[in-house]
């Protein structure tokens, strides 16, 4: 078995992985990126509508800053997020977007003067200021107080990923394409790289590294209906779980996006609603104001998705042979806007539905979209349990999204996390903790183990099919661990998944094709996906409250008193049935923004006794701050800048600053 040595091994070639790689490379570390597919084809490219960063350039963004972005994100998370991480993120997002602007992303720009927009179903004329002309503009998104989603038409992720990939090529960073990490090399709480399979030849290799970063994105494909790319099977999170040492955080926190096109589940951007699009029911009635008078179509995604399903359950959907759906109406935005600012949406409607959204309605229904959970790390992206293992982006839970992510915060997170985690990996490699004594015996042992695992599948004489079991897993997740969850059905899901795990031991192959063999790939991934699915289902069963995207019909209230806790799932070696769950307390007394009403969604929740105490503390702390300077006031409540790399600590400049 070939062994390749490097300082930093990044598993995943999307935005987070490539930015982390660039950061570590600039610090003088040798870096190799592994990617399942050519890096520019990563799922980051599918992000359409925008990247949240509080630049405050356009009219709708005026007065925006890190404080407002912070509050929106924490409310969006339903107070599940780590607030220090949210601060680090909102502080770095403007820097991330400005760096990308210099690197080549053609961000859409503010144009001075009047233009027509559509707000709340009405046409309105607004006027952009002279002094903002040519700066990066932004559009409205759900759950935000300001227009903050900076965009490149509706190909934002594509443009960002191409610029990032091109910069990685310029930095001479090798991307080993069509490579899949099968197992993390680890010993005694220290990670040393990975065993990797070449998806063109089927050959196994070992990569040994001082620091290993998982940046493999989400695991939406454990669901039947998902907006995710078909490569989003969560293998990065799964191999971290299979170490038995590292833990996964909040796996039950799964986001469903309101507007997957029906029935294919392909995403059309939140920008459709941000730019003024409306949701209509079977009678073509605009129903969201009935449920959410404050934010209407632009409440957070968890709330809008729930309201849509509620409305369908009330018999107000459109019936078709594939089931029921609702309508997205963007006709009122006009042909010019759609043809320039929503052109990917237009193409998707045209090719997959045969619909022209300038003239016709778009059939939509919520679909699985995002995994808030992932490899649990500290604020620097480092696993607390498995040293030398880092994670960034959707694959990680560091944890800035809590139980619901705001639209546009994920592409922003990928780049910000990459900027921070690239530095922390370089710091780690330069420190004494980064030193390693390489054991090639370790690589051989792990390589042997993976070879045996695969041989067990290849030589199996059982009668089960990996494709069939995968389908059953996906059906179970979509029907029983979806938007509305209930203890009884979660119990059934857990039991079904356990049966599937047992049946999985009898999966055999019909094909003995040489090379990577796609059937073998499906079979070994199924074993790992079932573990992730069980973390989601079992975590959801245990969490007897409703928070963000996790909604329990049998426990409909958010319960701060008992559940200000983050779920940690581990899969102890040899365990076949269920993950071991632990809980980590979120300390209200350390929060800058104590729990309250989000400004949309349910108003009733069970309070934690600390909330009132912390509010008193905050009030008295603020009364002693002599200045109106918002940075000083923030600093008095929850200092965070010391957690950032030194070059990311300074204030962000904005128009109108002195």
């Amino acid at each position, binding site marked *: 078995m070939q062994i390749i040595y490097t300082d930093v091994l990044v598993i995943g070639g999307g935005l987070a992985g490539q930015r982390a790689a660039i950061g570590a490379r600039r610090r003088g570390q040798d870096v190799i990126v592994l990617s399942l597919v050519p890096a520019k084809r990563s799922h980051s490219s599918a992000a359409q509508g925008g990247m949240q960063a509080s630049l405050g350039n356009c009219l709708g963004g005026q007065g925006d800053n890190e404080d407002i972005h912070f509050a929106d994100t924490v409310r969006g998370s339903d107070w599940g997020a780590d607030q220090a991480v949210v601060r680090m993120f909102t502080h770095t997002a403007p820097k991330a977007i400005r760096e990308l602007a210099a690197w080549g992303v*053609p961000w*859409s*720009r503010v144009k001075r003067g009047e233009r027509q927009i559509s707000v709340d179903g009405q046409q309105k004329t607004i006027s952009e200021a002279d002094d903002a002309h*040519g700066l990066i503009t932004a559009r409205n998104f759900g759950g935000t107080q300001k227009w903050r989603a900076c965009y490149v038409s509706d190909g934002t992720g594509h443009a960002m990923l191409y*610029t990032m990939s091109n910069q990685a090529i310029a930095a001479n960073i090798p991307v080993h394409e069509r490579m899949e990490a099968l197992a993390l090399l680890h010993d005694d709480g220290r990670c040393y790289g990975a065993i990797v399979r070449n998806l063109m030849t089927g050959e196994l290799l070992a990569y040994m590294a001082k620091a290993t970063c998982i940046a493999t994105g989400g695991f939406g494909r454990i669901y039947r209906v998902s907006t995710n790319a*078909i490569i989003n099977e969560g293998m990065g999170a799964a191999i971290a779980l299979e170490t038995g040492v590292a833990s996964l955080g909040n796996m039950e926190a799964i986001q469903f996006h309101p507007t997957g096109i029906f029935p294919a589940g392909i*995403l059309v951007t939140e920008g459709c609603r941000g730019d003024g699009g409306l949701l209509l029911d079977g009678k073509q009635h605009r129903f969201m104001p009935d449920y959410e008078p404050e934010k209407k179509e632009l409440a957070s995604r968890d709330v809008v998705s729930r309201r849509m399903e509620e409305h369908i359950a009330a018999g107000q959907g459109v019936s078709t042979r594939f089931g029921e759906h609702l309508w997205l109406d963007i006709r009122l935005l006009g042909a010019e806007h759609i043809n320039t600012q929503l052109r990917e949406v237009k193409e998707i409607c045209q*090719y997959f539905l045969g619909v022209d959204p300038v003239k016709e309605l778009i059939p939509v229904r919520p679909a699985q979209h995002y995994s808030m959970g992932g490899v649990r790390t500290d604020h620097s992206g480092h696993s607390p349990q498995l040293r030398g293992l880092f994670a960034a982006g959707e694959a990680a839970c560091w944890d800035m999204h809590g139980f619901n992510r705001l639209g546009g915060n994920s592409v922003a997170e990928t780049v910000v996390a990459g900027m921070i985690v690239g530095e922390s990996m370089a710091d780690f490699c330069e420190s004494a903790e980064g030193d390693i004594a390489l054991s090639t015996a370790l690589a051989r042992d792990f390589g042997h183990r993976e070879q045996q695992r695969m041989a067990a599948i290849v030589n199996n004489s059982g009668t089960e099919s990996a494709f069939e079991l995968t389908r059953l897993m996906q059906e179970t997740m979509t029907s029983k661990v979806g938007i509305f969850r209930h203890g009884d059905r979660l119990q059934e899901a857990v039991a079904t998944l356990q049966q599937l795990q047992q049946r999985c031991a009898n999966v055999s192959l019909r094909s003995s094709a040489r090379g*990577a063999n796609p059937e073998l790939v499906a079979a070994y991934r199924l074993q790992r996906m079932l573990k992730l699915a069980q973390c989601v289902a079992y975590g959801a069963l245990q969490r007897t409250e409703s928070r963000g995207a996790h909604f329990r019909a049998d426990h409909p209230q958010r319960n701060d008193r008992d559940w200000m806790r983050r779920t940690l799932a581990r899969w102890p070696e040899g365990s076949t049935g269920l993950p071991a769950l632990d809980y980590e307390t979120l300390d209200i007394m350390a929060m800058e923004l104590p729990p309250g009403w989000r400004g949309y969604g349910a108003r009733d929740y069970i309070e934690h006794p600390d909330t009132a105490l912390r509010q008193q503390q905050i009030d008295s702390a603020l009364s002693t701050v002599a200045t109106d300077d918002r940075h000083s006031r923030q600093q008095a409540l929850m200092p965070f800048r010391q957690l950032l790399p030194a070059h990311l600590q300074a204030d962000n*400049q904005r128009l109108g600053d002195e």
Partner: protein
Amino acid sequence: METIPLKKAARTLQITILRHNPCDTSSVPHLQTFMLEEADTMTLFIALTEIRETQDPSLQFDFVCRAGICGSCGMIINGRPGLACRTLTKDLPEKITLAPLPAFELIGDLSVNTGKWMRGMSERLETWVHAQGLEQLDINAIEQRMEPEKAEQIYELERCIECGCCVAACGTAQMREDFVGAVGLNQVARFRLDPRDERDDADFYQLVGDDSGVFGCMTLLGCEDMCPKDLPLATQIAFLRRRMAAVAISGKPASKIKPE
């Protein structure tokens, strides 16, 4: 009875695939036909997945986003390059022939190594913004301004998804292995347009001023006809050729020639 419209019987598709597995020394390129019952809204992504899951699990192909965004699934569909994921079977006849994109290294069956080709093209044409001081940026400061129309023009060319359809449709690319293709020339046009890139036409001439570059194009227009993103490739190539010819004729040293 006559008033009730008869439901059209589902078609049985006859999908013929050019197959070969280079990892298997005994494999010989051959055509194999699969019969498949058509379903509503079936795309080639759905059809091929179903064939793999129910008929031949060894069938190789590449899909990632299955939404026409990532450029993974370029293949020859009834003789023309296109994105399989967004090709609806109802728009095709009952007999469908699929083959891998030519001009790229074959991985197996319908899977080709476009990634390696595109990385090579990017390295050769240096498809990134060339500017001084990119490593010492002040990212706290307000960003440089850009005219809104300029950003839109750049994005128009930036929409390329490197699927390889233009290369597969190109006469020159079939004859010259080193031809950068419309995809490469479009990249040059994109960075040439970008005010952040400090390279001038003489620099670009060094990259594409010969027969493996812009002068290799025979103006067959296959690239523009087959581009799934409808990029104005022929226009860009024609314009670039004029600019590069101007550099050659002027014979001026690099720094004296200003891009338009």
